[in-house]
């Protein structure tokens, strides 16, 4: 990722044009935004932003199907619990590159960190939407900390980890802004930051599972386990691997025209390398889940409707992608690896939804179904994340082969 330091643009207007408008005249830039994809994005935001306003104007009851029996709904299950798992690519790739010395993955590191950083920002936004009195969020740190609460540990870890991710991503932003001295200063902190990041991630990924350790009567026995923290931690690694494979594939495809082909990134090699890890992690995860079942002794629940659903999650969304990853590595089949990655991410999503929503309160006759406004708000948050990701990747040196616009003729 080598870039020369060029002279700064000579005026504020030129800086704005170069940095923000991709070197185009403002009017040309705005016209370039009128793409079908952006129209879809605009439609989503047009539907979702009013819902957000309504949520804060009229309260949770006005926009959601949250109830006295279902205090946690789509926002917790998706934006918070799943969001954290899907943002795990940041720490897994950083660990692979800096702790295990696997330099092969360096080209996808910055994008993985950005995905992680934006993922956690979205988690925070989702939390602010879901909390009854979100302006009191700092109370847990400064006012009356509940040190026995799992949420206390999650709160601190996520807070510190957001700072870590910002510091991990900062070099890319500083390079973009041309602040090289600050950038060099940060470079010296890398190993410590990465180690801190992996430690914090281990803690809060597992603690999201710990939330449900106190709910044995409410969570279906096939999903309940005192080992939920371990399950959540291991599956977060798989989710991170799957997300990095998926995101690197989509980014390279979407930004293909803007990347320097001579940068010679071995994306296939990276994908297959990650697939190797994915196969192993998923296989291990399958077996520890099985051990959890053995520990609970509830084999009698397998031949039930819930058992079939559990079997589907385990066989189709955990064991199958493990085998597909292994096959992909053996046959050097990158497309198969990407399919496995999609199944893996889906599997973690389904698992998080099962634990926090679907298999939760499984004895209750009334099921919770998210209201349309809830879905729109979640969709809006994800869309915002994608838009910001795209904006940053289009401008800052995140993808390998990123061409500085000053080089464009």
């Amino acid at each position, binding site marked *: 990722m080598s870039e020369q330091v060029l002279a700064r643009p000579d005026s504020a207007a030129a800086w704005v044009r170069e940095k923000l408008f991709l070197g185009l005249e403002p009017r040309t830039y705005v016209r370039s935004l009128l793409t079908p994809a952006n129209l879809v994005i605009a439609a989503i935001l047009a539907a979702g932003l009013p819902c957000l306003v309504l949520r804060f104007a009229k309260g949770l009851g006005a926009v959601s199907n949250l109830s006295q029996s279902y205090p946690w709904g789509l926002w917790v299950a998706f934006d918070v619990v799943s969001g954290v798992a899907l943002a795990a690519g940041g720490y897994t790739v950083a660990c692979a590159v800096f702790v295990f010395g696997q330099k092969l993955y360096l080209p996808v590191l910055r994008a993985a960190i950005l995905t992680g950083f934006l993922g956690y920002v979205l988690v925070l936004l989702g939390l602010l939407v879901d909390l009854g009195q979100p302006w009191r969020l700092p109370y847990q740190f400064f006012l009356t900390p509940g*040190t026995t609460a799992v949420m206390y540990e999650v709160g601190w870890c996520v807070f510190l980890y957001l700072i870590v991710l910002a510091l991990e991503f900062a070099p890319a932003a500083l390079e973009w802004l041309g602040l090289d001295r600050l950038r060099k200063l940060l470079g010296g902190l890398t190993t410590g930051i990465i180690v801190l990041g992996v*430690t914090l991630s281990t803690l809060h990924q597992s603690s999201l599972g710990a939330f449900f350790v106190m709910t044995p009567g409410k969570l279906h026995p096939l999903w309940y386990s005192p080992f939920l923290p371990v399950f959540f931690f291991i599956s977060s690694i798989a989710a991170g691997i799957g997300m990095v494979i998926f995101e690197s594939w989509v980014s390279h495809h979407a930004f293909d025209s803007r990347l320097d082909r001579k940068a010679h990134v071995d994306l296939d090699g990276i994908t297959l390398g990650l697939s190797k890890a994915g196969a192993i992690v998923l296989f291990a995860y399958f077996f520890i889940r099985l051990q959890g079942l053995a520990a609970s002794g509830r084999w009698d629940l397998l031949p039930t409707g819930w058992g079939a659903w559990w079997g589907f999650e385990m066989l189709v969304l955990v064991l199958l992608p493990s085998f597909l990853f292994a096959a992909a590595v053996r046959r050097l089949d990158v497309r198969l690896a990407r399919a496995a990655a999609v199944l893996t991410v889906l599997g973690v999503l389904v698992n998080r939804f099962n634990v926090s929503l679907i298999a939760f309160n499984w004895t209750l006759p009334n099921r919770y179904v998210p209201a349309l406004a809830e879905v729109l708000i979640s969709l809006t948050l994800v869309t915002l994340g994608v838009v910001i990701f795209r904006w940053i990747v289009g401008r800052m040196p995140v993808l390998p082969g990123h061409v500085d616009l000053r080089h464009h003729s």
Partner: protein
Amino acid sequence: MPLDRRKLLKLAAAAGATAALPGPGGARAALSRPSKDARAVLVDTTNCVGCRSCEMACSEANKLPEPASDVDFESARATGPNQFTVVNKGAVKSPAGDDRFAKTQCMHCVEPACAAGCVVRALEKTENGPVIYHANRCLGCRYCMVACPFGVPKYEYGKAAPIVRKCTFCAERQAAGKPPACVEACPNEALVFGSRAELLVEAKKRVYANPGKYVPHIYGEEEAGGTSWLYISDVPLESLRLPGLIEQRSYPEMAERALSGVPFVITLWPPFLVGLWAMSKRRKAPGAGPRTEEEHHE
């Protein structure tokens, strides 16, 4: 040696920073040690006639809307943000053919899951028994609702600044030496107020002195590790619309176990990871001296 002084200082800083994080204490340690005199209520449902005076007294004492004067006992009612206690009819009649009723409200557990799980200590177990709620701390995460095995806390979803609502065990009245409003209102001595230790003895006395009358179980003795509201009856307690599937052990203890790994991760991960890092560096350039890490970039 692969670790130069700079690396070591950074490692120490990272480990120190994470170790210095306010760690989660034992989940039970922060809960008040219950005083030997902690208050409880014994609910003898053989004396309850379903008059619902307790519901009326509760709403009056807590300035809540008055409950409906007539209820259809066929369907079970739940407490709500504006009703802290409800009386439900059991599905099974007594051996003598009478209807059986049971009052439900917050159980004021000896080791409450809600208080252990509250990130801002809005729910707090007092040493005299009541689990009280500080509305000015609550940020509305609703984890107490997730954690409570009895499904007690209720939320004001309709408000712009919502809070959690539940039975307070009339903590203020108790502090003034008075019994809870519901206990005072009960005309038939279905509710007996006293110290938990003494009431457990009383409950056992009634059960053992009347073999064949009472079902030999005191609901609340071991449920959730013990609650302040104890129920005895001559019909199966599950038939009284009392929450089932309650573990006979402390819920905060489960969370404490789940969190017990945290201090180990905080102190062991950093040296373990740095060790791996040092090993991977040495493998890449055997025999090379310590390098600066600027070479890692680009």
